[in-house]
């Protein structure tokens, strides 16, 4: 659940009554019922995007071993259930945080950036005002996506008919290289925003100017992810069409 500080979610241990950590009681070591925390908090990390993936992996394996349901074979039913629930949350949290794109998308959701909702509202605004809705990605990228999709359709058709068109293959091959380049550039662009975000988190200022700065960083990350979605899908489609 967004916005929940670990302190809110960690009262006392069900077994011995002292204060506990998120997963195990810090005093008696018993497994604790899962609490609704975000994935960053689950691992005890700040909500930052430059994440030490080696540390994440170490934490993951350490927790996996301690939370593994086999360890609780002889334990009370509730502990077995909790260890199972905690393990499943651990896996989700690990899978989400280790991937740079999933991690960014997750942070955006946590911070309340809802792409679909924003797009729907923009359409409603366009309907009400008669102004044109601004597309989430630049028009020239949309053109490129459309054109390449047309070429891919042509290629699939030719393959079906057993025809071979070296010029078309060459064109698609070139497009693929340019897409891969773009993909790399977009990831770098995203990482530059990560650093700005992390700096803003470190400063922890709550004044309105900083809040709107943070919002701008989130919007720029969304913008990069939008463009990257197209590029990623196209790379996948190009590879499929070339290999089929």
């Amino acid at each position: 659940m967004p916005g929940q500080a670990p302190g809110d979610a960690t009262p006392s241990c069900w077994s011995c009554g002292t204060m506990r950590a998120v997963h195990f009681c810090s005093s008696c070591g018993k497994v604790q019922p899962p609490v609704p925390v975000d994935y960053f908090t689950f691992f005890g990390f700040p909500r930052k995007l430059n994440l030490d993936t080696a540390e994440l992996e170490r934490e993951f394996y350490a927790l996996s071993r301690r939370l593994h349901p086999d360890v609780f074979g002889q334990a009370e039913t509730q502990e077995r259930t909790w260890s199972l629930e905690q393990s499943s949350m651990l896996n989700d949290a690990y899978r989400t945080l280790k991937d740079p794109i999933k991690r960014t998308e997750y942070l955006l959701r946590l911070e309340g950036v809802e792409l679909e909702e924003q797009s729907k509202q923009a359409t409603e605004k366009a309907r009400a005002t008669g102004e044109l809705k601004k597309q989430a990605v630049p028009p020239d990228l949309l053109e490129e996506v459309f054109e390449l999709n047309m070429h891919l359709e042509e290629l699939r058709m030719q393959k079906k008919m057993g025809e071979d068109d070296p010029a078309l293959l060459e064109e698609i091959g070139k497009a693929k290289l340019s897409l891969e380049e773009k993909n790399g550039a977009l990831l770098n662009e995203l990482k530059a925003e990560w650093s700005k975000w992390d700096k803003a988190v470190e400063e922890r200022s709550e004044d309105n100017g900083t809040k709107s700065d943070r919002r701008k960083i989130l919007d720029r990350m969304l913008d990069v992810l939008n463009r990257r979605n197209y590029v990623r899908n196209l790379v996948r489609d190009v590879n499929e069409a070339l290999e089929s």
Partner: protein
Amino acid sequence: MSYSDKVIDHYNRPRNVGSMDKKGADVGTGLVGAPECGDVMKLQIRVNPQTNIIEDAKFKTFGCGSAIASSSLATEWVKGKTVDQALEIKNTEIVKELALPPVKIHCSVLAEDAIRAAIGDWKKKQEAAKPAEVQAAQ
């Protein structure tokens, strides 16, 4: 998730697939996309300049079945309407007609965006053509 019969029908027999010359003075082109799924949709209209009635519409969509069905339906609906009537089409009507599930609502939003973008493009061409006509009349 399963598609409704109407979505499947439009998917199997899409209406008005094709393209028009986007340079044509009476043609409006809308190219829009849904970044969340990577869909891209092109919708084109041919408008009668005397009546402002959309006499023909074509589309080409790369995306899921719901996106194809939404744009196919959109071309059917705009044909025969005036530009102003076409601007009244709401995405929720497409959702209703095709019985789209909540996860596919963005496909209907995309279709409405495409209609608006095509009409916007056509209007821009009309505006651009006006001063020349005035000059020619003088």
